[in-house]
C-alpha cells in the first residue's frame, strides 16, 4: 500500500505505520526534555529501550531522513528527533534531495516566481 504512485513520496499508511511503530514511539517521547537529554547522553541505550529494529537503529545512527522514512518513520515524529540533531526543515529538505541548504532554499524561492 505504501507506494501510492506519487514520485519521491511515501504515504504514511497502515503498512508504514506498522513498520515504523517503535521508531515513531521513540520520537514521540522527545516531547519531554528529559527524554531528549537521555537520548543525547546514551543513544544506544535509548534506542534499545524502544526496541528499534536494526534498520531503524542504523537510520538514526546515520541521521539519515530517507532511511528513517524507509524504516517507517513519520515526518511529524521524526521532526522531534531532527530537533535534537539541530536540523531544521530546510536542512532536512537539503539532505533528502541531495542539495546544499542554500540550493534547497533557492529552489523554494523559485517556486514563488513562476
Amino acid at each position, binding site marked *: 500500500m505504501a507506494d501510492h504512485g506519487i514520485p519521491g*513520496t511515501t504515504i*504514511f499508511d497502515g503498512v508504514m505505520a506498522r513498520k515504523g511503530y517503535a521508531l515513531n514511539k521513540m520520537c514521540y517521547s522527545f516531547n519531554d526534555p528529559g527524554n531528549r537529554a537521555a537520548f543525547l547522553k546514551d543513544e544506544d541505550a535509548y534506542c534499545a529501550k524502544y526496541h528499534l529494529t536494526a534498520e531503524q537503529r542504523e537510520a538514526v545512527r546515520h541521521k539519515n531522513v530517507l532511511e528513517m522514512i524507509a524504516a517507517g518513520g513519520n515526518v511529524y515524529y521524526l521532526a522531534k528527533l531532527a530537533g535534537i540533531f539541530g536540523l531544521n526543515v530546510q536542512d532536512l*529538505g537539503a539532505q533528502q*534531495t541531495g542539495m546544499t541548504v542554500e540550493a534547497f532554499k533557492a529552489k523554494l524561492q523559485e*517556486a514563488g516566481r513562476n
Partner: protein
Amino acid sequence: MAEVVGGLGTSHVPAIGNAIAKGLQQDPYWKPFFDGFIEARAWLKRIKPDAVVMFYNDHGLNFFLDKMPTFAVGAAPQYNNADEGWGLPVLRPCRGDAEFSWHLIEGLVGDEFDVTTCQEMLVDHAFVVPLQLLWPEGDAPPVVPVAVNTVQHPLASPARCLKLGRSIGRAIASYKKDMRVLVIGTGGLSHQLDGARAGFINKEFDMECIDKITANPEGLINYTVDDIVRLSGTQGVELLNWIAMRGALLGRVSKAFCNYHIPISNTASALLVLDNEAAEARRAA
C-alpha cells in the same frame, strides 16, 4: 442564537512562532507574510467574534499512533500548549468553552460523525500560531479545537471534511446563546517536508484551492486524499482543515482578503479571509 460571522484560513508553520518569538515581523524575509495579518486583524475588529472553532491538525503533541482519532473535538475549559521538542517557547493556556463544545459534539454525533471527545487536550503550533497572528495581544476569544488527522492514512476525504464543517455550521446555528462565531482552518498550503520530493510547492494548485474554498468548495470534493498529496504535497493535505472550515460557512460567502506568499519555511503560505454574507445581511436587516 449563535451565528457564523466569518471564516479564515491561515498557515501555521512553527517557523512563524519562532519569528514572532524573535520579533522578526519587519525582517525582509518575513514582512510580506506578517503584513497580510494587519488587514486580517482590522477585519476581526469589524466582525467581533465571541468564540472560535478551529480546525487544525496535531503534529505529534497530543496524539500518538496508539490512539489516533480521525476527528477529535476539544471539550475542555482551557487548552495548554506544551514543548514540542524543537525549542518554540511554550505559550500561555488558551481559553475554551466547554458548554459550546458539548453542543457541537451533540450535533456531530447526532449527524453520525464518530468523533473522539477530549476533555484534556494539549494544543500545538498549528493551534497557537494562528492565535498569535490574529490576536497578538493575547486577547483571543474562547476557542473550540477540532483536530483533523493528517498524520496517518487513511485520512478522512475532502468530501467527509466538508460534511464535518457543515455539521458544525448547523450546530453553531442551533446554539441558543447569542454568539458571533469565527471558524478557522489552519495549515498548508502546498508543501512537502519528507521524501525525495521534499520542497515541493504547487502555486497553480494553491490558486485553484483558494478560488474553490472561496466560491465553490464542492469543486474540491472529488479529489481523493492521494490526489491532494500528489497536487499539494504530503503536508499539503492540511488543506483538509481549510475545507472543513469552509463547510461551516452555510450562508453566501465572499472573499474579504487574501495574501499568498512563497516561501515561508518550506511552504506556500496563505491567508484567506471570508465574509459570510448571509450573516452580514441578517445583521444589517
